[in-house]
């Protein structure tokens, strides 16, 4: 029996780059950036949903020009002086340079189909969307901003889990974000969650599971423990669609799976319902 606990982890090594930067992993079609952008990063051939950067996601959801970003400059400190093969500070700096973001989440005010909302959108490109102090704090501030302004919170998740370079403090972002959601509840506001690929471990085990409505994109991995670890630890044979959104819907964990173009109109409808 292995004692290895990898239930909350983040593996932020990027997948080996495909030959062409925009090659569909399902059907191997190639696309130019502008083609993909127009198609909301959905493969025109097979429907595969490419990962979407936070700002692109926000643009695809909100009414044009309605987004006002909050707390953009919040940076992670290095509370443990963490150093593995490289220092955490170096990983952070590198991620900031490559993504243009200060951390793995973008929050702010916006409107969808004319109705105000708060948004909290994760970005997997920043250290695998891992949740450390900044993600926890910004998500919590988004809850407060939604509560103060009396609007629902829409959050789009994409995360490998907690950011282990912040040690136990990264685990504490689970109860922290849960408490923020409960404060949002007390303010009578709704939270709508859109789970993009992947939504796993610490993020799934905290705020991502607590929405009034839980939506997911097709094919998204949604699991507390990912398939690789389950297989290694238990030697169980995994079902074909293990951990995918489709399995989660069947087992009652999700309200709906939506193709990306359906997401904005659905959020518009839900904002009317919760308005």
């Amino acid at each position, binding site marked *: *029996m292995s*004692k*290895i*606990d*990898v*239930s*909350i*982890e983040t*593996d932020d090594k990027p997948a080996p780059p495909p030959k062409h930067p925009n090659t569909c992993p399902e059907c191997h079609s190639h696309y130019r950036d502008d083609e993909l952008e127009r198609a909301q990063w959905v493969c025109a051939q097979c429907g595969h949903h490419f990962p979407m950067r936070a700002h692109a996601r926000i643009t695809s959801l909100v009414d044009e020009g309605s987004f006002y970003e909050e707390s953009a400059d*919040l*940076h992670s*400190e290095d*509370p*443990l002086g*963490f*150093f*593995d*093969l490289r220092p955490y500070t170096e990983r952070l700096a590198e991620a900031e340079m490559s993504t243009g973001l200060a951390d793995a989440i973008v929050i702010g005010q916006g409107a969808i189909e004319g109705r105000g909302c708060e948004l909290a959108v994760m970005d997997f490109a920043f250290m695998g969307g891992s949740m*450390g*102090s900044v993600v*926890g*704090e910004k998500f*919590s501030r988004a809850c407060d901003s939604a509560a103060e302004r009396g609007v629902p919170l829409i959050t789009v998740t994409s995360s490998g889990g*907690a950011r*282990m*370079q*912040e*040690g*136990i*403090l990264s*685990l*504490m*972002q*689970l*109860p*922290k974000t*849960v*408490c923020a*959601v*409960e404060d949002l509840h007390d303010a009578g506001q709704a939270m709508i969650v859109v789970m993009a690929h992947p939504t*796993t471990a*610490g993020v*799934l*085990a*905290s*705020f*991502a*599971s*607590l929405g009034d409505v839980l939506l997911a994109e097709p094919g998204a991995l*949604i*699991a*507390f*423990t990912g398939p690789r670890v*389950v297989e290694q*630890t*238990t030697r169980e044979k995994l079902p074909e669609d*293990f*951990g995918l959104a489709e399995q989660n819907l069947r*087992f009652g*964990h999700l309200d709906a799976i939506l193709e990306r173009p359906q997401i904005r109109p659905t959020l518009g409808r839900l904002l009317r319902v919760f308005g």
Partner: protein
Amino acid sequence: MAPSEHELRLRERLSRLRNVPLLGGARLSGELERLQRQLDRIQQEPTSDDIWRSVELARHPERPYTLDYVGALLDDWFELHGDRGDGDDGAMVAGLGKLGDRTVALVGQQKGRDIQERTRRQFGMPYPEGYRKAMRVFEPAGRHGFPVISLVDTPGAYPGVAAEQHGQGGAIATSQLVMARLAVPTVACVIGEGGSGGAIAIALADRVLMQENAIYSVISPEGCAAILWRDAGEAKKAAAAFKPDAAHCLELGVIDGIVPEPAGGAHTDHVEAARLLGDSLREAIEELADVPGDELRRRRRAKFRSLGVYA
């Protein structure tokens, strides 16, 4: 000898606390006393060897488990079984009993002593059914005003196919939410391994304690080493880097106090270990007993919402 950086940080936290009116009289003075005591005990930043010793002691096969403490500390214990849905998870125990004159609800992960029991209890790794069992016991505790004690001792939530299919992530999230809502005093103590989401599911409490040689971490040393060092053998190095020991957790403000163990570790003297744990649990509950439920909830959330370091 000059004070260590650790001691300095603890002193700083102490002086900060002296100026926080938010926490209210009783809570604050209890906090101060506790920190002062900790300060008196800890003079050295734990070394890499100290940390690894905690990892080993926290996992010691003869360390007292949840039911050992229940047997030593609670009268009229009655174990509750099942999630009232579709399972009774052996990795999570729950029940009611009397701690002195006061009825409490207790939940906790339970490892096993022999191989049969370990298998039956999944080495203390709960399925969603385990967290649902805990939640359904929180409900009557809240209704009857019973304080809740959780004893945390798990390598993590069970990583398996059925566990995922039954909603492991959602169960851990919801269990925390239910704890955030509880209007009764809640005290959690990590008594062995406080492994990641599997641990925090039952640790969103007014007071979070750790035994001296317990560990509390976002990932196991082996798991961290496998990912960041690409070598599970570097576990000791990983542990030194992410500091799962009680002293560091206290310093980071993640826990509210350290429960002393008998010299040599809790496994060397179960009776004394239980006595020391019992003292801390009683003290924590006494401090919280007269705080109104709404105020407990407010403070509890404010505490967890303050955790994190950013600029």
